[in-house]
């Protein structure tokens, strides 16, 4: 046990020394202000146009309802808009403003938009070379000559990866909250959000809808984002075991993640695509109650798909790593 802890410590410090995490923080510090600025511009442009948020919301509902009456928009968009209209209506009927500008709201929206591409990318910065760099650098021989079973070494790397994924996510949320708070104010933790919208065909089932605080929503969303980020991390981990070159493993994973976000937008009629891990990454849609990319997907289904992919990836990683011949 002590020895395992030593291994984890060794790996964690190694990743830290490679300055990967520093790069991620820098990227966040550079990008989040850009998004905050864009959001501020949007808020400014609608300011003064409406008497209050209710008028603005009414107009949004009317505009989306009108878009629905057009025959030219594709069926999936319609479903998405129907869900949106009914949700906004629910908020309006209960006199709850779904768009109060504050740092917590911004962070929630940011996480929701980042879960498909941005967060996987940051996770890959750590995950895709955690094993392959040892081999391209030749340090793997030093590692394996220690009197420790190979699977323990790999397990320590996996634990390290898990810890970094968590750290990255919490840092993302924290940076987003701290930066956006400068503009929108740091309040909003206790404001209500409605969850539990269920899509029933094209109709919204609101029987299970209940209000939670935005703070709780953020925590739940972070938890779900963590699960999908871990799936990406574990699969990247496997690729990193299988592929010798860091560049190759990074490109493979990026291609997988990007194709997932493209597929999620166009594969609504290809039903078996829902078994691909990359289509299931956006777990926050279930919290929000917007329609999933492919009909029939539920939170349980997506979690199961991601879990099976993750377990398979872990299995392959260990099987390969413990048997592999280390040459070079």
């Amino acid at each position: 046990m002590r020895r395992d802890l030593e291994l984890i410590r060794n790996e964690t410090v190694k990743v830290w020394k490679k300055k990967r995490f520093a790069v991620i923080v820098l990227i966040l510090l550079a990008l989040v202000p850009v998004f905050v600025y864009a959001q501020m511009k949007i808020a400014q442009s609608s300011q003064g146009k409406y008497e209050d948020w209710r008028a603005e919301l009414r107009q949004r509902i009317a505009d989306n309802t009108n878009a629905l009456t057009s025959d030219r928009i594709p069926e999936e968009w319609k479903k998405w808009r129907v869900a949106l209209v009914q949700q906004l209506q629910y908020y309006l009927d209960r006199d709850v403003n779904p768009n109060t500008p504050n740092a917590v709201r911004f962070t929630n929206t940011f996480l929701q938009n980042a879960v498909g591409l941005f967060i996987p990318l940051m996770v890959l910065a750590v995950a895709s070379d955690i094993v392959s760099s040892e081999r391209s650098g030749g340090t793997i021989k030093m590692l394996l000559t220690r009197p420790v079973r190979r699977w323990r070494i790999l397990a320590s790397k996996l634990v390290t990866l898990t810890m970094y994924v968590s750290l990255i996510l919490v840092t993302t949320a924290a940076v987003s909250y701290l930066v956006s708070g400068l503009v929108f104010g740091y309040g909003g933790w206790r404001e209500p959000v409605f969850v539990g919208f269920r899509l029933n065909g094209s109709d919204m089932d609101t029987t299970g809808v209940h209000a939670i605080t935005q703070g709780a929503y953020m925590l739940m969303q972070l938890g779900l984002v963590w699960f999908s980020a871990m799936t990406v991390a574990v699969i990247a981990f496997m690729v990193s075991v299988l592929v010798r070159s860091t560049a190759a493993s990074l490109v493979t994973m990026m291609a997988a993640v990007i194709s997932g976000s493209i597929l999620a937008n166009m594969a609504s009629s290809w039903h078996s695509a829902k078994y691909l891990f990359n289509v299931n990454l956006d777990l926050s849609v279930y919290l929000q109650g917007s329609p999933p990319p492919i009909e029939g997907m539920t939170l349980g289904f997506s979690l199961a798909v991601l879990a099976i992919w993750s377990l398979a990836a872990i299995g392959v990683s260990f099987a390969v790593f413990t048997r592999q011949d280390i040459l070079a």
Partner: protein
Amino acid sequence: MKRRKDRLWPVLGTVCLLCTALLLLGFGWALKDTWAPSPGLVLPSPTQAAPQQGSQWTSLPEIKAIAIGDSLTRGVGDVAGKGYVEDSLAQLSESLGKPVRLNGNLAVSGLEAAELDDKLDGKAMQDAVAGADLVLLTIGGNDLFRSSQQAGGSIAEGGGVDPDLAERRLPATEERLKAVFTKLRALNPSVRIAYVSLYNPFYELAQLRAPIASILADWNGYAAHLAEADGNIVVVPTVDLFQSQSARYLSSDHFHPNEAGYARIAVRVAQALN
């Protein structure tokens, strides 16, 4: 150097562990909330906006207007999508010498009188009407023309518009218009309502001209009668605007006005209101 390294691991390790624990907690909570939700926050019950009392336009610093109804209010047929609403309010503002603010164009393309009647039972619409000083309204065209169109017909050729069917629907639709006016008045006793009446989009089709004209005369007359009874509703006539050279003022769908057509309606609405 050695000491710095020594401090890195305890701090980093603890922070990472705390983050992981936090996220696991969030994950578990999300699952619990999805599959076994607790009752949730208790929110204050929504309040209904109170209708504004006895407001004379002359005493108001600003006129708040809303627009409701169907595609004509929406501006369908206008390439810029503006319709008559903005222009007429701008002209009204000029002639009144005070700002007129559009507090929302809530018109929905394709809306029928019955649907508008239903919408007026919703809180969103009720609040909007209650807070307004002026309501711009178009309704009825879809009931009388679109719904009496048989499947497959092209509206450009008057395709399948059945005057007999439209005429049979007339009494029921007129009842709906009455219900809409009554509800608007109940929601806001002092609001001014401008109802833009119907024009004949089929004027150039000889076989439809006469029967549709008589239906429109009945409908617009009924609307004027309701307005008379209410006292604070104006009916804006548009029939004459689209009679001669209707092609110049109708859009390519031969049903909705184009920009020039909407501009003419806008002038009428502004004039009728002041």
